[in-house]
């Protein structure tokens, strides 16, 4: 019965669309609205000029600057040792605050376990990919991300590549690790890289800074439903994503 209702509603709506478009045809011919100088293009526009040089160093710089502008905390690490040092410092700093950072939830990225084992700071618990109900009790979520966008300071999280949808969202602090090589310049490039059809993850999340609201008297409050702190470690050393691909298989062609 519901199937029939749905079919007849679909036919009615599509029919109404066609009928009203047909009624509009005589006016479309004379109305200026139909005339546009610009034809829609297949790809997005280049909004900003390319940076002075196309190296990843300038992309890292631009990404860090834009992330800072929206209240995120970027750290650049030149090798794995520096990534571990950055993780240690962020966590021990957090432990001095009410954010605690003693119970830590990791995504299923295999690189993370190894990194966290070498932490030089004491924690109560490190769990890989806890269930949704348990996650509410964790102080900190750590994940890698699949890409970043320099011109906006944005992280790209693809659900098919890593189990980080909740770890990056539920705990009050999120630490993300991104390989410098995965930073692209524009939003348009990032969208193009997300792929098509089966390559497009069921959920792609773009994250630009910590959770925010200005719903009460337009006063900015950070950390309303999502994390109130976002730390991003940009890894300029050997790529962490290579370790990931062993488990998750080939990534989309970035």
């Amino acid at each position, binding site marked *: 019965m519901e199937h029939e209702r749905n079919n007849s*509603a679909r036919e009615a709506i599509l029919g109404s669309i066609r009928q009203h478009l047909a009624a509009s045809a005589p006016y479309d011919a004379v109305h200026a609205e139909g005339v546009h100088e610009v034809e829609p293009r297949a790809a997005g526009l280049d909004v900003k000029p390319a940076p002075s040089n196309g190296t990843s160093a300038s992309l890292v710089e631009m990404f860090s600057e834009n992330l800072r502008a929206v209240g995120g905390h970027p750290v650049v690490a030149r090798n794995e040792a520096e990534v571990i040092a950055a993780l240690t410092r962020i966590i021990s700093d957090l432990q001095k605050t009410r954010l605690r950072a003693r119970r830590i939830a990791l995504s299923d990225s295999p690189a993370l376990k190894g990194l966290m084992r070498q932490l030089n700071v004491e924690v109560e618990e490190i769990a890989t990919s806890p269930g949704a109900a348990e996650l509410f009790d964790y102080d900190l979520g750590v994940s890698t991300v699949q890409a970043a966008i320099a011109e906006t300071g944005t992280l790209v999280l693809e659900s*098919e590549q890593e189990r980080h949808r909740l770890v990056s969202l539920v705990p009050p602090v999120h630490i993300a690790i991104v390989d410098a090589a995965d930073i692209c310049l524009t939003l348009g490039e990032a969208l193009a890289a997300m792929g098509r059809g089966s390559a497009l993850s069921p959920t792609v999340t773009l994250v*630009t800074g910590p959770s925010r609201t200005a719903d009460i008297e337009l006063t900015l409050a950070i950390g309303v439903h999502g994390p109130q702190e976002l730390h991003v470690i940009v890894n300029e050393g050997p790529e962490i994503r290579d370790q990931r691909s062993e488990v998750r298989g080939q990534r989309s062609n970035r």
Partner: protein
Amino acid sequence: MSHLTTETFDANARAALGDVQLRGALRNATSLFGTRRLAAANGLQNWQELRTEARAIKDLVLLNLDRYLAEFVSNAESCGAQVHWARDAEEANQIVCRLANEHNALKIVKSKSMVTEEIHLNVELERHGLEVIETDLGEYIIQLAGEAPSHIIVPAIHKTKRQIAELFTEKLGIEPTDDVDRLTSVARGVLRQRFAAADIGISGVNFGVAETGTILILENEGNVRLTTSLPKVHIAVMGIEKILPRFADLDVFLKLLPRSGTGQQLTTYQSIITGTKRKQSDEGPEELHIVLLDNGRSRMLAHPVTRQSLACIRCGACLNACPVYQQIGGHAYGSVYPGPIGAVITPQLIGLGKAAQLPYASSLCGACREVCPVKIDIPELLLHLRAEITEGQKAEGSRQKAVGREPGLEVAREGRDQDEAVARSGIKKHKMEGVAFKLFALMMGSPGLYEWNGKAGRLFQRLVMRDGRIGKVGATFSRLAPPLGAWTRARDMRPIAQRSFRELWRDGLAEDRQRDQPH
């Protein structure tokens, strides 16, 4: 507070004008967002080109909406989404209630969505015994207060933090505070429990991509992510006009929408959802239901002018730019869609007869058109709707049924009982209007008559002036006799100057000018 209706716009507006606190809040919000929007737009080299391109994309979609909708549905379904078509609000509400029933759901969390406000989904869900919690902070506040949103982007803009603190003290039992961070964290705590317990998450949709069957939702708080990640079932309600042809088109609209709405380069989160998860062990809901709602939208396709309304991406920029909205706020419009875009969308959705005052809630200054990221010519739309209203009254007056009327208008009217309803509405056009304009033309054609009329006016206006204004707004009664009183019903009128330009000219300006001229 009782909800205001579209039919009493003039009275609503007058009441809002007397609300000092509201007007202060509106001034702050509209000027802040206006400034930020301008800065964000200027940060792009090609803002104007982007607007043109966005509109071209929207026009392409709307002129082929049946095709793109079918493509969207087929791709969404092949990724595991279930699509439900709803002709009107009632059918959409029934679909959502049936889904809730089928899943034995009791608790529902919702993220901010204009379209679910439009169909009054919460009322219907609650009638079915379901608990519905709005999770956007602003929406949560007004839900607690039992009020309606007053701004597209900042729904609780009409409330002070003191009022919100009192509300939280009363409803949530917290200690009184006016610390915004504290209020926010209280809401966070309460709502986390709701997220954890919810059976179903309901969201709106900002864009649907035909090419991939993707839906995209923008936000800053993280409540959309929680709503669409934690419960087992996600129901997304979207208007049929939200479609974009290609995934790459998102680039254009993701540049325009956040910048126009809040002046951000990007909102904090974009959830880009394509079907359901592929493995049972993955995170996220097991089912994704997309409810496609018409509810009067397809009617707007019947004319190129009204069709523009469907290009709207709900950024709220026209509200902030509008001198009328800046003074009266969102509630006065009596509809979920306020401001200039509301003044054109609402009458088309609910019928001109029920919202005949709204197309007149504008000075036609064109500020809305200037800021619109998809170049909707709102003043043109307002005039088009005003013309329809006048047509409807003419038809009512002569009791003639739509003979030889423009076919586009005729189709657009279908099933709305326009003529009768318009005639019953607050805007009454008299035969006097025609006579008045004939007299005006006569006067403007004769210098002597013009001058005499000015003199008479100056004598006459002394009788009706108060505080240097005619028909002062807020006065207990208008001192202008009907039909002239109608002119000052909703606005002050400046008096005619004590001395006309002609008199000034005769008395000296001409001599001054001669003196100044080199000999």
